[in-house]
């Protein structure tokens, strides 16, 4: 199992550590655990894990701080664990370089889905070519040719709509914060204008979703941002 993906879990609660370790080991991952921020940073430096799962509420240091310190030298995906009602912390951590989040309590399916997305992205970073065509249900988005199709039919999008969709689809599976979308699709100066995002997202959903009120592809992450769900 030497080439099993290595996951570092930084969480101070032994029960959570135990549960995650059991489940992930069962799924064929190599798991290391740390219960403190400093310990986690040291283990991350020595073991170079493929994925870091990080609890935001650590006893010795702020989880956001751990994120920042990790990002100083590694691009490995970081999945944050946190409790409900801490949207502010989650957004802070995501904007500091974390890749995804899970709200406690979470189902195992959710955890595994996040891990899969994270692995795919870490592979992408390491130069493994990713498909330039993102498929989601009837939709197919060709990021190289700038074309969006539903079935065989071309979907007409405005420039901004396309830019928005391309950013979402290019990071499919990952949560994207309002700020990161606004900064990337509009301009860093517009980072506070979530109303732009809301309006364009409505237009985009109207053009892409079967039922815009119950979206399947562009999901809202309450208080955080959006996530594009593509076929696996």
């Amino acid at each position: 199992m030497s080439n099993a993906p290595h996951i570092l879990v930084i969480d101070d609660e032994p029960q959570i550590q135990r549960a995650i370790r059991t489940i992930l080991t069962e799924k064929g991952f190599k798991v290391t655990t740390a219960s403190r921020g400093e310990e986690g940073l040291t283990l991350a430096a020595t073991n170079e894990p493929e994925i870091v799962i990080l609890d935001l509420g650590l006893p010795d240091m702020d989880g956001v701080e751990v994120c920042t310190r990790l990002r100083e030298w590694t691009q490995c995906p970081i999945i944050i664990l946190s409790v409900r009602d801490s949207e502010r912390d989650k957004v802070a951590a995501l904007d500091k370089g974390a890749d995804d989040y899970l709200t406690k309590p979470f189902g195992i399916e959710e955890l595994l889905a996040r891990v899969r997305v994270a692995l795919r992205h870490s592979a992408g970073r390491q130069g493994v070519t990713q498909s330039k065509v993102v498929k989601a249900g009837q939709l197919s988005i060709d990021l190289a040719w700038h074309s969006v199709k539903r079935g065989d039919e071309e979907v007409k999008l405005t420039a901004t709509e396309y830019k928005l969709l391309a950013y979402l689809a290019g990071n499919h599976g990952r949560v994207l914060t309002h700020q990161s979308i606004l900064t990337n699709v509009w301009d860093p100066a517009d980072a506070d204008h979530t109303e732009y995002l809301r309006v364009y997202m409505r237009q985009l959903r109207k053009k892409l979703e079967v039922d815009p009120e119950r979206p399947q592809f562009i999901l809202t992450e309450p208080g955080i941002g959006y996530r594009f769900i593509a076929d696996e």
Partner: protein
Amino acid sequence: MNMQSSSFIARFYKYLFALGFIALVTAVLFALRESLDTALVALLYLIPLGLITAYWGLGPGITSALATFLTFNYFFIKPYYTFAVHRPTDVVILVIFLIVAIVISQLVGRMQSSLAAATAREREATQLYELSTGLAGLNDDRAIAQILAKQVQEVSQGEAVEVNIHGPHFLAFQLPEATQPARTPEWIVPLQVARGVLGEILLWRAAPAITSSEKRLLQTFASQGALALERARLAQAESRARVLEESDHLKSILLSSVSHELRTPLSTIKAAASSLRSNDVHWDSAARPELIAAIDDEADHLNMLVGNLLDMSRIESGVLKPKREWNILPEIIGSVLTRMKHLAGEHRVELDAPEGLPLVPVDFVQMEQVFTNLLSNSVKYAPEKTVIRVRAFVEGDAIHVQVSNQGPQVPPEHLERIFDKFYRITAADRVTGTGLGLSICKGIVEAHGGRLWAENVPDGFAFNFTLPLIWEGVSLPNLPMDTETE
């Protein structure tokens, strides 16, 4: 200076009147001189003397006595028109007259001044009485300061009075309002109690100088005021203690209710998990997935319960501050519907919102919570296969949202109370839910400046709430639009 000179003039007039009166009496007696005996004249002279002393005080009395002595000697004792006295009896009469005149003046004068003192004491007593009745029953520092300043001002007739009250909230009350002289006050009295100084009274009155009796009175006022303040503090402390006691009581009710609510799903989980572990349930038994589902569902239920409790405590402690952003209401509802897919079960949820519904400044997560709770409440009570309708429309400068279902109507007397914590219409309601959902909704909607109420509608029951479209006095900013196609 002005007041001093006017009182000097008043005193001068008293002497003038006294002497004028003596002159008048002398003139009358002079006219009757031939028919009156010298001793009788002396006796008659005593009447104006007594009156003068009684009316104008000791000084004019003594002065008049001396003046009378001279006029008596000059006009009525032979030889007339000289101050010389020849008859020895006249000498005796004169001496007796002088003694009697002065004694009468003194006696009457003393009586007079003691009367004045008694009147002054009575006035002080009345003022004190007024102050203490004014202060009685006051529990508000501001009102106490007000009464104190008013009474001090009335008694002292000063240019300005200020009452300062120290404490957690410093408070100053001035009379006349906001016109206090720029110089340091002439007289400062601390409001002192055994525990320390609670404040002070400042009095500006340059003239006439504040007398020692006034100072004494003001001291008494100050101690009355200090006592009233201390009483107010004690009363406040007591009512705080009572509030704490009540909230403690409420907390213990909440705690017992909560522990019951928490234990129910826990019992299910424990029972299901332990029976799965004990191998009592066969691997391929049909009960197995059911037990696992029960554990999963009850864990979700527990999670919801804990979330609700947290929300409730946040609402109650007033820390629930909506993080407002311009949002599209149907998107929030959509997000809820997507997540409630399995919860909605056999109900059909219809969304009826106009295309051009304006953006609304709300906290996305909190509004999601409101819709989740209102919808799950509707799902719980409305019969299966019925429609739950969510309508949103603009009404004035607010958005009106209605969540209606075809469930049973609620008796009118319960319509208000269903938003109370742990309030349930029927005992059967205990089975599911936390009893907190609707009160949380109300708390959130009100934190957004809106209003939430319930009503019976022709074919069922509906929740209504409003959300203001104006946020901090600003309505929706302009949005950039692009229309060109890629």
